[in-house]
């Protein structure tokens, strides 16, 4: 288990109402209620949600915990390293990282955040709400395109026609797989303006939050059903892939860095994360976001966030003159 006090620094009060309140459940068990998909959102908010804790009970696996809390599996492993996903034990405290800096994208329609492996939906009739769901994405080498498209069609009980690329890997697959328990598209699918890419459900929910598709986006069955009933054809879909977020929350600067795709696979299989080079231009981005508050940035925390890549927003400013960049012997490592 990661030392929480060193990794997560909760938002302070003042301007971040929900995040300040969100600190309260930190000490509480999440127990059984599933996490709501909807988060309150004011126009100036840069973050949603909170970090909470769940105490495991007999028979739990981390896959069960992820689904019940509407989290992705890799996302959960990133902050619970060393926990056996199959047998976490009874009474083990599992950190639930349901706290996000919103991706840098217009707040309309659907925004798919490939790095965080989450989908955001901004309902046009509810400007004070954003919905957020975990998603499964493509395996290494099967990348979902980044850019903007639209929902072209909605299909209930879709039939799956495995594309040639999948047939090449698994020639035994039939030409089409009808709706039902063997259909990997699940019960609902959105066709996009991009041919061959779908947002759909799944018959293997444990794949949500992992790199397991050929580029499609898939959600838990209960999440795709909710989304299917809300999102109209024509809705804008924007796919972004930036691993880094830097934003002010309640007067403090937060940095959120997600694992690379390779690190995600390592987390899923081995439960570990081998550090890699910091994301490009990280220092410049923090400097730009900090502005005239740059002296408050604690670069040792920025460096640790870059190493650990928990995907959880971490406060990097202190109330005093915290900038120690010039004292770091290997300052070039964050360039």
């Amino acid at each position, binding site marked *: 288990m990661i030392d929480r006090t060193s990794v997560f620094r909760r938002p302070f009060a003042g301007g971040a109402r929900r995040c300040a309140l969100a600190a309260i459940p930190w000490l509480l068990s999440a127990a059984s209620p599933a996490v709501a998909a909807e988060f309150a959102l004011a126009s100036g908010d840069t973050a949603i949600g909170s970090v909470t804790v769940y105490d495991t009970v007999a028979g739990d696996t981390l896959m069960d915990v992820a689904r019940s809390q509407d989290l992705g599996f890799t996302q959960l492993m990133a902050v619970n390293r060393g926990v*056996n*996903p*199959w*047998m976490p*034990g009874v009474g083990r405290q599992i950190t639930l990282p349901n706290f996000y800096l919103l991706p840098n994208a217009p707040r309309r329609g659907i925004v798919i955040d490939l790095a965080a492996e989450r989908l955001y939906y901004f309902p046009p009739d509810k400007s004070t709400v954003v919905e957020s769901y975990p998603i*499964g994405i493509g*395996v290494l080498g099967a990348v979902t395109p980044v850019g903007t498209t639209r929902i072209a069609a909605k299909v209930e009980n879709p039939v799956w026609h495995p594309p040639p690329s*999948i047939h090449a890997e698994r020639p035994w697959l039939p030409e089409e797989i009808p709706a039902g328990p063997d259909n*990997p598209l699940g019960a609902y699918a959105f066709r996009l303006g991009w041919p061959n890419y779908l947002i759909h459900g*799944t018959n*293997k929910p*444990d*794949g949500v939050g*992992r790199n*397991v*598709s*050929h580029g*499609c986006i*898939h959600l838990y069955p209960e999440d795709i059903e909710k989304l299917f009933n809300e999102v109209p054809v024509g809705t804008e879909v924007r796919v972004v892939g930036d691993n880094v977020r830097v934003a002010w929350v309640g007067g403090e600067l937060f940095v959120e860095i997600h694992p690379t795709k390779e690190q995600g*696979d390592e987390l*899923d*299989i*081995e*439960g570990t994360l081998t550090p890699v080079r910091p994301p490009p231009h990280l220092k410049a981005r923090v400097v730009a976001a900090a502005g005239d508050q740059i002296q408050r940035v604690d670069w040792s925390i920025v460096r640790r966030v870059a190493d650990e890549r928990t995907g959880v927003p971490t406060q990097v400013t202190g109330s005093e003159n915290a900038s120690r960049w010039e004292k770091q012997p290997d300052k070039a490592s964050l360039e």
Partner: protein
Amino acid sequence: MSQLKIVRIIPIAVIALLGLSACASNTPPADYTAANAKADQALATAQHALAVAQQAEADAKAANQQTSAAYQRSLTK
């Protein structure tokens, strides 16, 4: 995992009891040699049990990773 802990704890408890009994008894000093031999034997047994447990833990970890890797592959669409 708790079973592994038990495997580690039992031999240590045996050693402690042997040590206590040796100290608390009225055994003449000359007979401490026999008690020491028993303690050494218990220690060797405990060390062996610890090595077995560590190997079992390593095997379990490897098996766990193999399971996770296979499961990950099974989830691929």
